[in-house]
């Protein structure tokens, strides 16, 4: 049985874009973890905290750039439509996740500990993962 999520079914441009976006997402998670761990353990001076905020902007802008680059270079109009659809699904996932997080924060104060640029970072990682899944699911549906 063929795996519908098999990488061999992706075009070289799609594979390259996934690699680049995954790299950015991993970079974003790494910056977030360093920021969180160093902040929690008091290893970071207060002047360095904004620096991590700016650092996390690099992979975020990278993800947006690589998404735009992919949409411009994709010659298959159906796949381009599917990609745009996937981005909209990913945006919807973020809205739902943020709404739920906000609701849980009101109910349980532990959830409100996620703050500052960590929400933006979490949103971006969630966006990248959700868009990837939505894209593969839609391609699988028209297999």
């Amino acid at each position, binding site marked *: 049985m063929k795996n519908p999520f098999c990488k061999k079914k992706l075009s070289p441009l799609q594979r390259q874009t996934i690699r680049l976006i995954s790299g950015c997402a991993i970079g974003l998670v790494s910056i977030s973890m360093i920021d969180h761990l160093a902040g929690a353990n008091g290893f970071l001076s207060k002047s360095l905290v904004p620096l991590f905020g700016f650092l996390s902007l690099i992979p975020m802008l990278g993800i947006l750039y690589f998404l735009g680059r992919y949409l411009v270079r994709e*010659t298959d109009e159906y796949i381009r439509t599917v990609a745009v659809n996937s981005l909209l699904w990913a945006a919807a996932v973020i809205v739902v996740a943020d709404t739920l997080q906000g609701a849980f924060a009101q109910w349980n104060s532990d959830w409100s500990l996620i703050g500052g640029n960590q929400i933006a970072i979490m949103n971006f990682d969630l966006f990248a993962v959700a868009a990837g899944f939505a894209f593969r699911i839609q391609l699988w549906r*028209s297999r």
Partner: protein
Amino acid sequence: MKNRLRVLRAERRWSQADLAERLEVSRQSVNAIETGKFDPSLPLAFKLARLFETTIEAIFEDENAQVLSD
């Protein structure tokens, strides 16, 4: 939009992958057009017409044509 793509393809004994290769699109695109999930752009419709040596009207059926002519 209804179309005769599956019939035309079957007449030539082409698989979806064969047609996709000739059109330089993905197999999923051919499937989506055949099942009516996706309407191709005008350039792709012309490409299809050229490939099957026919007209766009012979491949695609405009369901609103009757309404417009009334």
